[in-house]
């Protein structure tokens, strides 16, 4: 299993102009590694609707790579989105599912099927052309550049040690810039950054 740092730090180092969309347990850690106008936290939002939101961004911005860092509990809420992503043909979307087997934000209660689920198999069955599963940091780090380059949609399952993030708020108490304002404000700012660039 990877630590959250082993998952996120290589991505932050490689990242140039990619859009990165986060949810749940990686929202705060990513916000401490990155301060880009092209980061979007699906926080104070609707659980289970990060991958479909990211698909929309990818379809509207076909010239940019979109990296979606989804949770396994969130993915389980919307497994149909795997079929929608493939059907829509989002060639610039890399969907990463952070598999920690638990609802971290609420205290690491186990997700249904914890330890038995095979997200990579689900993605293959849905028709993803590129599917990867990682549980070792060196192999993940070596593969990452290709995951951000290849013609997608690309699905990446990464086994990660459960963390201890608490509920995510928005406002001045949060350290990262994309959480220090309302979802509405950041959404409009994020859109302007994309449309104006």
């Amino acid at each position, binding site marked *: 299993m990877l630590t959250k740092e082993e998952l996120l730090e290589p991505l932050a180092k490689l990242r140039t102009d990619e859009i990165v969309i986060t949810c749940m347990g990686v929202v705060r850690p990513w916000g401490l590694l990155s301060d880009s106008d092209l980061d979007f936290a699906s926080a104070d939002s609707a*659980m289970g609707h990060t991958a479909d939101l990211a*698909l929309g961004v990818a379809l*509207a911005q076909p010239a940019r790579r979109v990296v979606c860092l989804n949770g396994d509990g969130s993915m389980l809420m919307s497994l149909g989105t795997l079929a929608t992503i493939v*059907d829509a043909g989002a060639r610039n979307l890399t969907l990463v599912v952070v598999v920690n087997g638990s609802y971290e934000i609420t205290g690491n209660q186990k997700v249904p099927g914890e330890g038995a689920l095979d997200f990579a198999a689900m993605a293959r069955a849905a028709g993803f052309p590129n599917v990867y599963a990682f549980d070792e940091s060196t192999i993940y780090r070596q593969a990452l550049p290709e995951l951000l380059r290849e013609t997608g949609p690309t699905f990446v399952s990464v086994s990660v040690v459960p963390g201890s993030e608490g509920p995510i708020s928005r406002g001045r108490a949060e350290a990262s810039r994309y959480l220090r304002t309302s979802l509405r404000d950041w959404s*409009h700012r994020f*859109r302007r950054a994309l*449309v104006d660039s």
Partner: protein
Amino acid sequence: MTMVSTAKVLHNALVAAGVSHVVGLPDNTSAAFFERLAGEGAPSLLRVTREGEAVALASGLWLGGASPVVLIQNTGLLESGDSLRGTAVRMGVPLVCLVTYRGYGKLEGPGSEPDAMTRADADSVAVVTEPTLRAWRLPYVFYRGDHDVATLQSAFLMAAKESRPVVVLIPNLLE
């Protein structure tokens, strides 16, 4: 005035409004429109597996600079409640949601009885559709047929001006 409602007129109205994508699921009322859209190729048609997914996907499209609408049935409107609240409403997305109104014709009479939610001659989804929209603080208008294109245009203007979702209820079959 006749209540003719045609897929062609609705399609032309969406093109005139600058709609880039239609995201949704078909039902009997909207089937002819979906078929027309698939044949025309523009706006782009995006099929989803559930209605809440349509709302989040459309919100993402808007984030990326596109101008989508959602097209779902009122049953799916209920399904999409938290997605509407947490994405389009919370994000301030000027999203027009076209919602076909199953059971509208049964609202008067059986649908107004105290036991409307359980009786066989009423349609429970119609009974709760407008009360739900009001509870969710979503503005809505009716598109009853081809003569209501101006109402549809007003929905786009309201959504853009107030930067929020606006629901357009479609009670009659699109031919």
